[in-house]
């Protein structure tokens, strides 16, 4: 077993926010499993992080809608790092469509990954934590879209509201085991998800130039800029640290001042 202070699994950690969170966990001394559906980018991310963190970082191929793959990623974490202390259900995607054209296929795909994936991840991590007697921390990636619906992101908004509900349900269910469940809600973050979104919105005709949709949203942010993935890490670090031990069922928005709730 490597010399780590505990194990952590981060889903959707091949890139974007998930990758940044994996890095933060490694810096804090955790052993980390990057669980991602994309072995190519995920493997490259692990190779790169392994240069500094050696055997403290592993890859597990996991589609979060497939329970056995999520369970395998958690099992790999327990085997390599002696347990699972932190589970970050971060995998998610968005595909914009104008509200009146929002389709069943996209709805089902988004709800499966973003909402069902969080339920499965929470269940599998909690089962392992309970079995090991670990007072673990489960952290879900919500979004400002879970607090406020966006017309071109109807299924995404609904899926992130579901993440908030699952966070609350999980918190109530698992408090008795000493497991806390919280969420963080990013606003607009400069990640591959948003690059894709910007391109999709351009294609839809919702914007007229590359970068325009994202810049338009930035105008609505009080701090005057979109977030970098690194802006999110400080908050999530607070949520995985003992400093937040009295918090459960809560959502912390990291939006630079957008929804003010």
């Amino acid at each position, binding site marked *: 077993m490597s010399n780590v202070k505990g194990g952590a699994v981060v889903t959707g950690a091949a890139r974007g926010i998930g990758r940044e969170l994996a890095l933060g966990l490694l810096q804090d001394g955790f052993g980390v499993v990057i669980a991602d559906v994309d072995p190519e980018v995920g493997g490259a991310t692990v190779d790169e992080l392994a240069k500094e963190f050696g055997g403290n970082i592993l890859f597990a191929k996991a589609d979060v809608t497939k329970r056995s793959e999520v369970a395998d990623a958690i099992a790999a974490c327990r085997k390599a790092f002696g347990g699972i202390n932190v589970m970050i259900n971060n995998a998610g995607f968005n595909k914009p469509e104008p509200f009146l054209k929002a389709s069943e296929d996209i709805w089902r795909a988004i709800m499966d990954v973003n909402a069902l994936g969080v339920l499965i991840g929470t269940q599998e991590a909690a089962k392992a934590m309970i079995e090991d007697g670990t007072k673990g921390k489960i952290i879900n990636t919500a979004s400002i879209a879970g607090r406020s619906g966006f017309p071109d992101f109807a299924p995404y908004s609904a899926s992130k509201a579901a993440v908030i509900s699952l966070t*609350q349900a999980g*918190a*109530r269910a698992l*408090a008795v085991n000493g497991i*806390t469940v919280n969420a963080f809600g990013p606003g607009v973050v400069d990640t591959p998800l948003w690059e894709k979104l910007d391109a999709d919105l351009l294609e839809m005709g919702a914007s007229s130039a590359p970068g325009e949709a994202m810049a338009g949203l930035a105008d609505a942010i*009080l*701090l*005057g800029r979109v*977030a970098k993935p690194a*802006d*999110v890490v*400080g*908050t999530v*670090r*607070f949520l995985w640290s003992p*400093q*937040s*031990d*009295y*918090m*459960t*069922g*809560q959502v*912390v*928005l*990291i*939006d*630079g*001042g957008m*929804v*003010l*709730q």
Partner: protein
Amino acid sequence: MSKRTGILTGAAGGIGRATTERLVKEGWSLVLVDRDQSIGDLAASIKTGDDQTVVGVAADITDPGTYGAIDDAVAEIGAPLKLLALVAGVLQEVGAIETLEIEEWDRVFNINLRANMLLMKHFIPALKQADGGAIVTVSSWYGKSGHGFFGAYCASKAGLISLTHTAADELAKDNIRVNTVAPGNVATSMHLDALNEEAAKRGVTFEEMKKTEWDKIPLGRAADPSEIADAINFLASPDSKYITGATIDVNGGCLFS
């Protein structure tokens, strides 16, 4: 990190003392403000690092005429003002709206809401002069939901959350972030006194009242004051640099909002 000053109100109370300890550990120099005259002795008793200063000022935060002494203490420390931690607050005399004395309503609003507006108004120029910083208010889960017999307290804390949002909107351009910590039940003398009073009001014992209240909390206990201090420290630190206008709910799960 270079020397930086924070002002902390309600510094002699349970959350105030824990917050002092936490912020001093992070290297802050502090002006501890409390209406209790013992605050000077309390400040003198705090162990600090070499380049840190902690000064106590006895002041009535509802009276801006007393703020000059706080200004003097900030000047005495001589480092830029980067933090306004507005912890001071009071509970109300427990009672129904039907019998609520307007003097009691005014007392609670004066301290929990009006004073915080006055403090922001007075100290925002210094925060701007320091090229930005953080304002952290301490609201309550009672500010996010109504509770019988606490009409003045709940409304004052709801107002404080709203004031926090407005200040966040106005000050973002000046690089001043404004956020609130909303505690649930915290094991301070204020909470225990309130339980005692409510127990008497409802004709039950203290232990019964405590059990009734704590059983509503998924984590099954009140917070330690240090756990509120941790959240205040987080909002004062660079770890929260992209957060403004937000509420950190440190309530053991007693309210999901």
